[in-house]
C-alpha cells in the first residue's frame, strides 16, 4: 500500500506565516515576468532590426568617412591604403573599397531640354559594392559616351528644387533618356563626354562612373593616380554589429548613412533590456532566497513533528520529496502566470505599438517558452534540494 502524505500533512505545515509566503510568491512572479518580458523584447528588437536593413547577398553595405573636426581640419583626412588594409583585416568587415573621386573639374549640362549647367563631382566604386549594375555600365578608352549610375536620392532632390528653377521634374525613366554633356577639364587637357544614366542606386549617394574611366581620366587630365579617397564603402554581415560600431567610434570614422542608427538604438535598447533582464534575474534570486527563508521557517516550526516522524521510521528522502511536492503547483502557477502576462504584453506590443508589423509575431517566441520551462525545473530542483538538506540535517 502506498504511503499517504495526507495523513502527515497537518503535522508539517503548522502555523505557517501566510504573509511571508505570499511575499515570496509575488516576488517570484515579478522576477519571472521581468525576465520573460525582457527576453521577449530582446528577441523583438533583434527581429525588427535584422529584417529592416537593406542587404545584398545577406550583407550590409555602408559608406564611412573620417570625422572632420576643428582639430583635424586642414589636414589630409582621406583614407590611405594602410587605413584600407586595416579595415579589411577586421573580422566583422568582409570587404572594403574606396570611393575614388575625380581630381579634375567636371561640368554638367543637359542641353536644350533642361537648361541647366553646374559643376559636379563624380566617383567610382568597385562594381561588387553597387546595388544596381546593368551590363551597359562599362567604358573603353576613346568611347565618347559614358554610363552613369545616379543616386535615387539626388534625383529626388532635383525634383524638389526643379519647379522653383523652372526646370521640368523628371521620372526615373525620363531621366535615363536625358543626354548629359560632361565637360572634364584638368591640367593636361579637356574632354567632353555624353553621359547617360543607366541605373539608379539606393545605396550609394553619388554620381558613379566606371572605375577604369575615372582612373584613366585622373591620370590623363590631371596626371595623378587615384590612390586616396575620402569615402570608403564597407561590406559587413551586420551593420548593427556592436563590435563594428565600437571600432568605427574608436577610429573616429563617421558613418554617413542612417543605417547604423538602428544599430545604435539597438545597442542602447539591448543594453537597457539586458539590464532589465539581469534585474529580473536578481529579483528571482531574491524571491527564491525569501522562499528558502520561508521554507526554513516552516521546517523549524514543524521540527518536533518531523523529528518524531524520522524516529518512527519515515524516510527523509520520501518526506523531503513530498514536502517539496507541495510547492510544485505553486511554482508552476507562478511561472505560467508570468508567461501569460508576457503573452498579453507581446500581443499588445505587436497590435497597439507595432501595428501588426509582419516582422514580429503576436505570440511569444519559443525561447521564452523554453525559459519558462527551465525556470519551473530550476525552482523545483532548488526547492527539493533545500528541503532535503534541512531534513537530513535534522536526522
Amino acid at each position, binding site marked *: *500500500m502506498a*504511503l*499517504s502524505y495526507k*495523513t*502527515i500533512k*497537518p*503535522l508539517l505545515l*503548522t502555523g505557517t506565516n501566510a504573509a511571508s509566503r505570499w511575499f515570496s510568491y509575488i516576488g517570484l512572479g515579478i522576477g519571472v515576468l521581468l525576465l520573460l518580458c525582457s527576453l521577449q523584447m530582446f528577441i523583438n528588437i533583434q527581429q525588427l532590426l535584422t529584417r529592416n536593413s537593406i542587404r545584398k547577398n545577406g550583407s550590409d553595405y555602408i559608406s564611412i568617412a573620417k570625422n572632420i573636426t576643428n582639430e583635424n581640419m586642414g589636414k589630409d583626412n582621406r583614407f590611405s591604403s594602410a587605413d584600407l588594409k586595416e579595415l579589411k583585416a577586421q573580422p566583422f568587415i568582409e570587404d572594403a573599397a574606396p570611393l575614388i573621386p575625380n581630381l579634375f573639374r567636371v561640368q554638367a549640362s543637359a542641353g536644350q531640354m533642361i537648361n541647366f549647367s553646374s559643376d559636379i563631382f563624380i566617383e567610382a566604386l568597385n562594381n561588387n559594392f553597387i546595388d544596381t549594375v546593368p551590363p551597359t555600365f562599362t567604358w573603353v578608352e576613346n568611347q565618347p559616351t559614358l554610363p552613369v549610375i545616379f543616386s535615387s536620392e539626388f534625383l529626388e532632390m532635383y525634383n524638389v528644387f526643379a519647379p522653383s528653377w523652372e526646370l521640368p521634374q523628371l521620372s526615373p525613366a525620363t531621366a535615363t533618356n536625358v543626354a548629359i554633356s560632361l565637360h572634364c577639364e584638368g591640367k593636361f587637357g579637356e574632354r567632353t563626354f555624353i553621359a547617360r544614366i543607366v541605373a539608379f542606386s539606393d545605396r550609394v549617394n553619388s554620381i558613379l562612373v566606371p572605375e577604369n574611366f575615372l582612373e584613366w581620366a585622373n591620370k590623363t587630365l590631371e596626371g595623378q593616380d587615384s590612390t586616396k579617397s575620402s569615402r570608403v564603402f564597407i561590406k559587413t554581415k551586420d551593420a548593427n554589429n556592436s563590435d563594428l560600431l565600437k571600432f568605427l567610434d574608436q577610429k573616429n570614422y563617421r558613418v554617413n548613412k542612417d543605417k547604423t542608427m538602428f544599430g545604435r538604438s539597438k545597442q542602447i535598447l539591448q543594453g537597457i533590456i539586458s539590464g532589465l533582464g539581469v534585474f529580473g534575474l536578481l529579483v528571482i534570486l531574491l524571491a527564491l532566497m525569501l522562499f528558502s527563508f520561508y521554507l526554513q521557517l516552516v521546517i523549524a516550526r514543524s521540527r518536533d*513533528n518531523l523529528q*518524531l*516522524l*524520522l*524516529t*518512527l*521510521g*519515515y*524516510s*527523509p*528522502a*520520501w518526506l523531503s520529496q513530498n514536502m517539496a511536492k507541495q510547492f510544485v503547483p505553486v511554482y508552476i502557477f507562478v511561472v505560467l502566470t508570468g508567461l501569460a502576462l508576457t503573452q498579453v504584453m507581446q500581443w499588445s506590443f505587436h497590435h497597439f505599438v507595432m501595428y501588426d508589423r509582419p516582422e514580429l509575431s503576436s505570440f511569444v517566441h519559443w525561447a521564452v517558452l523554453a525559459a519558462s520551462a527551465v525556470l519551473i525545473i530550476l525552482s523545483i530542483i532548488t526547492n527539493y534540494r533545500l528541503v532535503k538538506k534541512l531534513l*537530513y540535517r535534522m*536526522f
Partner: protein
Amino acid sequence: MAPSGSGKTSLVHFLYGMRQDYNGSILYGEKNIRQFGAEDFALHRKDHISVVFQDLRLFPEQTVGENLEIKRQLNPFHPSEKIKEMAERLGIGNKLQSRAKICSYGEQQRVAIIRSLLQPFDFLLLDEPFSHLDTNNSQKAMELMLEEAKQREACIIFADLERIDYFPYTKLFHL
C-alpha cells in the same frame, strides 16, 4: 534490570540508533549500525525494530487514532480495524477520537504500546513501558505484546527498574 540513572534509556537509544556516543559495536546480522545512513535507519525502523519510549513521543495535537494510523501506514502489519480492537483490549477504545495531549499519561502509554505493535519487527524495545500503568492494565498490555511478538517470532528487550513477574524473560541482565 537496573536502578534509575544506570543507563537503561541510553541503551535503548543506542540499540534503536538514536545515539552514537557509545564504545563497542552494535550489529544487526552482519551490519554494524554505525555504518547506517539516514535511509538505512528509516528502513530498519520500518521493518525490523520497534520501540516504546519511556517519554512516549506521541504527536500531541493529533488524535489517538491518527497517532496510530501514522505508524500503521508506514508498513502495515495489521489492517486498520486492528487498531480499534487493540485499543478496546487495553481499555482506551473510547479515546481514539481524543487528542493525544488531553489523554492521561497512563492512556498515552497504552497508545505508545499499541503503536509499537502495528509494524513488522524482529526486536521490540521496551523502556519502562508500564511506569504509569496499574498491574491489571500492565498485565493486559504484556499479554498483547507477547502475542504480537510470538506472531512475528520476534525478541523483546525489556528495560525496567525491577523484575516484572508476568514477563517470561529468557535472559536477565543487571546494569
